[in-house]
C-alpha cells in the first residue's frame, strides 16, 4: 500500500486521473495522486527540482528522453499513440461547411475567423499543428495552403484552453488530439494517417515537416507517442512499476477515450525493470 504520485501530460487527465487511477486505487489500495500540465511544463518541473513524482507520462516520447535521460531515468515504455485532427463548433460558418462535406482544409482556409492552436514554442501539439499544415499542403497538393492556414492561427496557451474557446464561443475550430475532443464531447474531424502523427511507421514521413522555435531550435515532426517512466529518485518505485503495469493492461480504457492502442504497442526503450511489462 502507500501512495503513488503521477505527473502527466494534460491531455491524459481524464484517462489517467479518473479512469486508470481510480481502478488502480481500487485494485491495489494504493492512494493515487495525479497532476496534469503541458508536457513541457511537466519536464520543467522535474528538471528544475520543483516536483518529484514517482511516474512521469509525456505526450512526446522524444521530449521525455531528451529532458530526463540519463539524469532522472534510464528507460521508458511507449504505450499508446494519439491522432491530430480538427475540432469545431457546429454553430459557426466553419462548422457548418465541415458538416456539409467541404474538405476540412478548404473550410479552414476560407474561414471567416481565426483557428486556434496550442503554442508551438511551448507545446508539442502547437508545433505538430504547424507541421501538419506543411504535410497537408503536399498531401492535398494545394499551393500556399500551409502558410494560409498558419496565418489564420491564433495561439492558445495550453491544450485545454483550445477547447474552452470552442465551448464558450470564442473559437470556431481548433487543431487538437482526438482524445481531447472525445473527453469534451466535441465534434471532431479525423485526418489520414499521413497527416495525423499517429502511426509510428510513418516516422520518416512526419520528419519531413519541421518547425523552428523562437529560441532558434528546429524540431522535426515525430509520431505522437505517449511514453511513461518511473524516476530513478522515486519515493515509491515499486508502486510506480505497478501503476505502469496496470496502465499497459488497461488498453480498452485508452482506446475508448480516443487513443490509438494497437499491436504496435508497447515499445520499450532502455532497460525496463521487472514487473512493468505484462
Amino acid at each position, binding site marked *: 500500500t502507500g501512495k503513488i504520485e503521477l505527473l502527466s501530460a494534460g491531455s491524459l*487527465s*481524464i484517462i489517467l486521473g479518473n479512469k486508470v487511477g481510480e481502478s488502480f486505487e481500487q485494485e491495489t489500495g494504493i492512494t493515487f495522486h495525479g497532476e496534469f500540465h503541458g508536457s513541457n511544463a511537466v519536464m520543467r518541473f522535474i528538471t528544475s527540482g520543483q516536483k518529484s513524482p514517482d511516474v512521469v507520462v509525456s505526450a512526446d516520447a522524444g521530449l521525455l528522453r531528451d529532458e530526463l535521460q540519463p539524469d532522472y531515468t534510464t528507460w521508458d515504455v511507449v504505450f499508446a499513440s494519439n491522432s491530430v485532427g480538427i475540432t469545431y463548433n457546429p454553430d459557426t460558418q466553419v462548422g457548418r461547411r465541415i458538416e456539409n462535406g467541404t474538405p476540412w482544409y478548404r473550410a479552414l482556409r476560407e474561414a471567416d475567423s481565426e483557428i486556434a492552436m496550442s503554442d508551438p514554442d511551448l507545446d508539442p501539439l502547437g508545433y505538430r499543428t504547424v507541421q501538419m499544415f506543411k504535410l497537408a499542403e503536399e498531401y492535398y497538393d494545394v499551393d500556399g495552403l500551409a502558410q494560409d492556414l498558419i496565418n489564420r492561427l491564433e495561439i492558445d496557451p495550453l491544450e485545454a484552453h483550445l477547447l474552452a474557446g470552442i465551448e464558450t464561443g470564442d473559437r470556431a475550430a481548433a487543431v487538437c488530439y482526438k482524445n481531447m475532443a472525445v473527453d469534451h464531447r466535441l465534434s471532431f474531424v479525423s485526418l489520414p494517417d499521413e497527416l495525423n502523427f499517429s502511426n509510428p511507421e510513418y516516422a520518416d514521413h512526419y520528419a519531413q515537416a519541421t518547425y523552428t522555435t523562437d529560441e532558434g531550435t528546429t524540431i522535426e515532426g515525430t509520431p505522437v507517442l505517449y511514453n511513461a517512466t518511473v524516476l530513478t529518485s522515486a519515493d515509491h518505485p515499486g508502486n510506480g512499476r505497478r501503476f505502469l503495469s496496470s496502465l499497459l493492461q488497461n488498453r480498452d480504457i485508452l482506446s475508448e477515450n480516443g487513443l490509438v492502442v494497437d499491436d504496435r504497442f508497447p515499445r520499450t526503450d532502455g532497460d525496463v525493470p521487472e514487473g512493468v511489462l505484462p
Partner: protein
Amino acid sequence: MHETKSNRTGFNSVFGGDYTFFGLLGAILAVYLLYPFVTFFAGAQGNGISVADFTRPEVISAAKYSLTTAPISTAVATAFGVPLAYFLSRSEFRGKLLVDSLVILPLVLPPVVGGVLLLTGFGSFTPVGQVANSLGLTLTDSYIGIISAQTFVASPFVVITSRAGFDSVEEYERASRSLGKGPVETFFRVSLPLTSGHILAGVALTFARSIGEFGATMMTAYNPHTMPTQIWVTFISRGVYATLPIVAVLVTFGLAVVVGIRYSGK
C-alpha cells in the same frame, strides 16, 4: 439612513435626488462584471448540468478540502498578520520602509509565480523542505501545502487593512499607556476593539482570496484538490460548463462570508 420604497423610476435615492449620472456610469461596470456570470450559467443550463451534479463526489470532496483549509489560512494570516501590522504601525527600525513594502509583494505577483517561488523556498529538495521531511511533514501536495499557498497569497489583505486601522488609534494607546497599561494589555483592551472594523474587513478579504486561490495552490499542492483546483481539473477533463456546480458552491461560500462579516460590522 432608512430604506425607502421604490418610486416610479424604480430607483429611489435616499437623498430624494438624481443620481442617474453615477448610476449610469456605475451600471456599465456592474453589467460588465455580472454579464459573464449570466452567460456562463445560461450556457450551462443549455449543456444539461443538473442539480444532481452538485452532489458528485469530487464536488463534495473539493468543498471539504476548501472549507478545511481556507479558514485555517485566514486564521494563520490573521494571527500573524495583525501583530505584524501592529508592529509596523508602532515601531521604527532600519529597513522598515522595505519590510513595509515587501509584505504587499504577493499582491503584485501573479499567484502562479508566487507558487513557483514557494516551491523554490519550500519544495521537497530545499533545505527547509528536507528538514520538514525529516520531521515527517510534507510541505507540498498536502494540507500544509494548500494552506501555505493560500496564506502567501491572501495574507497581505489583512495586513494592509489592519495597519490602516492601527495607524488611526495611536493617541488612544498613549492614553492607555499613561494609565499604567503595558503594550500587550493596551493592544487587547484599546487597539483591538477600536480597529475591529478594519480587521474584520481584512479578514473577509483574506478569506475570500484564500477560498478562491488557485495559481499558487496548483503549484504547491495540486493534490488534494480544493474547489479552485477541482474547477481546473474538471475544466480540463470535462469542459467549461461541467464546472458549474463547483463554481456555484465556491461563489456561494466566498460571498456568504464576505457579506456576513460586512453586515455584522454594522
